[in-house]
């Protein structure tokens, strides 16, 4: 099982803080948005509205970053701290 967290306006727009995906439904980071949309078609518009940043196990990820069973993945807008 893969845990997916959402933050900031993405969390608000989906009205969801945390979702899960079945192990094996994603291999790399680039698979995440299509897999989320397949499992939750009502999220398609929001998830495709702009590119989101993605972390795997609390480190910023690239499209080719591998996702394994048990990983914690997060999707969020560009950061604005400081």
């Amino acid at each position: 099982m893969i845990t997916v967290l959402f933050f900031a306006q993405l969390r608000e727009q989906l009205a969801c803080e945390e979702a899960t995906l079945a192990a094996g439904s994603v291999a790399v980071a680039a698979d995440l948005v299509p897999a989320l949309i397949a499992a939750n078609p009502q999220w398609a518009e929001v998830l495709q509205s702009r590119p989101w940043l993605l972390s795997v196990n609390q480190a910023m990820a690239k499209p080719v970053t591998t996702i394994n069973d048990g990983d914690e993945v997060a999707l969020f807008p560009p950061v604005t701290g400081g």
Partner: protein
Amino acid sequence: MTDVVEHDLVQVQQEDFSLAEHYARLEQLAGNTGAVVFFIGKVRAESEVDPVQALELEHYPAMTEKSLSRLVAEARERWSLDAITIVHRVGKLAVGAQIVLVAVSSRHRDEAFLAARFLMDNLKTRAPFWKKEHRASGARWVAAREQDDVAAAQWFSQ
């Protein structure tokens, strides 16, 4: 609270912080320190018409201190530094409130200025914090500034 190396401190907290206390910490660690640079970021009202009344800071707790500690480690690879402090607040902050403190001490001023600037530029683009502005007219998430990406990218273009 994470001690990155003996002389470094990374903290994410709701409470306010004291510049004087963090300076005292650096003073205790001073080996042959000749230069200390502090940066403090604060909540701005932004405009007189419909000013920001409060800023809400969300973060990704499991990732935040990891990201900041990574920035501290990168700064230490680039420059010879005595001590580094990063404190970042989260939660709801009033106009004028302190948001972030970055402090760097070193032998000469060049290293301290460069490292403080590096940490702020990269914190703004690589640490998982998000700001939401509350105004009389409503709340809105702050958009990332393209300038911040440019400022951060220049550290890696050489």
